[in-house]
């Protein structure tokens, strides 16, 4: 039961420890309480102060005529804190409390994607505001079947998380599992969707990314139509899509906006790049140190001349160069972009020109490392690049110890690991193992849009037809 005006006012003041942004105002017999930091004072002025000061009548009438779009009556005292922190203004009169939405717009406008650019396709990207993000998706899927369920996560942050799925396509089992995991999360603060993704998947099991983090609404809408579920976290410009498979990270979804014949060439090149970025340094070391007979003699003489005078074994040389390049890349990301060019020039000069003429590394090693890095940067997902690095080093160590035989062994470790990973009881190597032609033609290759009539068997069991036939 609510107490009197003075009591509520005193209680709130106590709870917020007389926080400096807590404004308590008394107009006649009405008390207005709001948090200055999250509320817009213009709205407070327009909706409430003006009305209450003019009107002499009963409070009921005031609310009937108030222009605010969102007015709620509070029944329990416990709700006061929630509404206040969310930018509502509390109006207390007698034993009744009303909450009027006067939220301040603390967000930037919709921008172009920063990390997942594409030449064609929509140019809008998610922002830090959950309402805008939801709107960006709902503008694309105008269906009552698009369900969004809200959760509050974070004991202190009370962050709003919205689970989106199409209830006539998405598998209920997946939604049930996500909801169960969400309800188990007990954390003091949730500041970004990446943390939620780590909580929802098993982070320790694999270095590979287990959830798609996208800043493109068109990609999320595409995944929802495919039968996946999306999670929007307030204050995060990245939306999580679950479940994710290995092949999802090789090609961006914006490939779909190109003709299949043209884009399949690029897609094959990306798959080759994946192999190259994993294997290039390992293969070079194995061939140079163990299997020289596989190199044609003219090339071998060339390699041999270039390596003449280099003090380190080829494997150590490769390690030094790989680690130097990682340092260079890291410094390039962290350093303010206005200084960025100087780092690149310094890096290129030291790595390329000076190191070779000083005889510390061979020119062919520079080529191998450059191929490795350029091919790794094809993938947009940072987590993917970093996880491939783990296996690149593993392959390199194996190649340094046992040549091509070692590469085969380490290749087996890589494959065994990849095949043992499961994501929401779905195999991570799907659609390669188990093989699914439909999903493979949506990720690894692109089918003609007219022929792409079905959804994948694993994700959308109940509703597989997406074109023609019955919806």
């Amino acid at each position: 039961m609510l107490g009197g005006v003075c009591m509520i006012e005193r209680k709130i003041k106590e709870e917020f420890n007389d926080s400096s942004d807590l404004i308590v105002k008394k107009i006649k017999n009405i008390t207005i309480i709001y948090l200055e930091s999250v509320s817009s004072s213009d709205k407070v002025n327009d909706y409430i102060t003006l009305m209450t000061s003019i009107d002499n009548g009963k409070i009921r009438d005031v609310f009937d005529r108030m222009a605010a779009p969102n007015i709620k009556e509070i029944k329990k005292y416990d709700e006061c804190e929630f509404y206040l922190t969310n930018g509502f203004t509390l109006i207390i009169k007698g034993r009744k409390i009303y909450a009027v939405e006067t939220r301040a717009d603390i967000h930037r406008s919709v921008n172009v994607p920063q990390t997942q650019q594409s030449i064609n396709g929509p140019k809008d990207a998610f922002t830090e505001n959950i309402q805008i993000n939801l709107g960006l998706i709902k503008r694309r899927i105008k269906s009552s079947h698009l369900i969004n369920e809200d959760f509050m996560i974070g004991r202190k942050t009370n962050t709003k998380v919205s689970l989106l799925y199409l209830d006539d396509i998405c598998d209920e089992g997946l939604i049930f599992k996500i909801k169960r995991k969400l309800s188990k999360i007990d954390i003091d603060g949730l500041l970004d969707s990446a943390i939620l993704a780590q909580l929802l998947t098993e982070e320790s099991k694999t270095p590979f990314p287990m959830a798609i983090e996208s800043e493109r609404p068109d990609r999320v809408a595409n995944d929802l139509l495919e039968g996946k579920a999306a999670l929007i976290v307030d204050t995060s410009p990245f939306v999580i899509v679950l479940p994710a498979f290995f092949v999802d990270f090789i090609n961006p979804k914006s490939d779909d906006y190109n003709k299949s014949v043209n884009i399949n060439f690029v897609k094959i090149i990306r798959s080759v790049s994946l192999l190259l970025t994993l294997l290039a340094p390992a293969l070079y070391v194995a061939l140079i140190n163990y299997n020289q007979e596989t190199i044609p003699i003219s090339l071998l003489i060339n390699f041999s001349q270039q390596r003449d005078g280099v003090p380190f074994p080829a494997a150590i040389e490769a390690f030094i160069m790989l680690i130097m390049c990682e340092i260079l890349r890291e410094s390039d990301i962290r350093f303010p972009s206005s200084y960025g060019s100087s780092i690149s020039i310094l890096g290129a000069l030291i790595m390329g020109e000076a190191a070779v003429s000083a005889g510390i590394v061979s020119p062919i090693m520079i080529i191998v490392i450059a191929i490795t890095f350029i091919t790794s940067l094809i993938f947009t997902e940072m987590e993917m690049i970093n996880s491939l690095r783990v296996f690149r080093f593993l392959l390199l160590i194996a190649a340094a110890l046992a040549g091509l035989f070692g590469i085969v062994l380490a290749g087996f470790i890589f494959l065994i690991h990849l095949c043992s990973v499961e994501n929401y009881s779905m195999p991570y190597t799907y659609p390669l193992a188990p093989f699914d032609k439909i999903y493979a033609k949506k990720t690894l290759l692109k089918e003609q849009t007219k022929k792409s009539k079905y959804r994948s068997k694993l994700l959308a069991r109940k509703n597989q037809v997406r074109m023609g036939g019955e919806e």
Partner: protein
Amino acid sequence: MKKILLVLMCLMMCGCYDYKELNQISIIGGIGIDYDNEYIVSLEIINDKKTSEGDSDSVKTATINGTGKTFVEAFNNAIAKVDRDPYFYQMQVLLISENAAVKGLNEVFDYLLRESKINNSFYTVVTKDTTPQEVFQINSLTEPVASSKIVKMLKDGSGDIKFNKNDEFDLLVGKYVKQGIDISLVALEMEDGEIAFNHMAIFNGDSLITFLNKDDSITYNLLTNKSEGIYLTSEDNVVALFGNKTKKEFKDGKIVITFTADATITEVQDNIDFKDLSVYSKLSQEFSKTMQENIENLIDHSRNYNADILGLGQLIYADKPNSYQKGIGLKVLVEVNASINVNKNGITFEVIK
């Protein structure tokens, strides 16, 4: 964890087996064998040192010799003089001097086949009137490594004498130990400081008997190779042969050799009217006859030295093993059918008068 441990053990326990750093090996391009009261083995070492700044592309080779009573002793004496680890997997050519070939190939072939650090895909060449050391020391502008030069000339060059597909070392040894066939190897000569190939060395058993003359050598190459554009001369006319096919079979107690080829006219002396189609059949007949004589000559000449280089005995052995006797390939009746179809006249119908 157990899995990782197992794999780590696999990697660690083999302990970098066969590890060779590239600048700790000496690449051997070819081996030469000479015999002069004792074996002389020469190794062609490809020098991979950077000579100077901006001149890193020039490759130089060095020759190291070792002598010994046996081939193995000489070979080991030679590799003992190499300062780095000698690397034989890229070896391209084995040069055997005339004297060493007369002495016999058994010892050499046996060692090279048995030794694991030598690959089996090099080619064997006999040097005529010169020694392997001299051959290794020639300096060509386009190909500084003599071994590579020899192999390139005999594989991709446009000479009349070339390697055939059975000349790689392991296949050659296969032929060497087979019943009813004698091996023949390309002979290398020096003409004014340049390498030339004009003859085939023919063997009886394991030792060299003689060199075939140039015409017979070319005929032998036509019969065993798919060589294109080899010139055939008859009286005053010359044609180039293309698409040659040879079929050898044992039928009714005799060997039938059928040779067919197309030919393009390259040089004619007479006033021939190419618009007259009967000219072609006349030329075809003429060249078929010439080719038939050439093949018969080749067989006669090689039989004079008791060498069955076309493997006629082997055909009988494959067909009727019971009737095979040693040397039957030298006695059996041979029927030669050569047909050359002159059907092209180059790019002009006219003859310059």
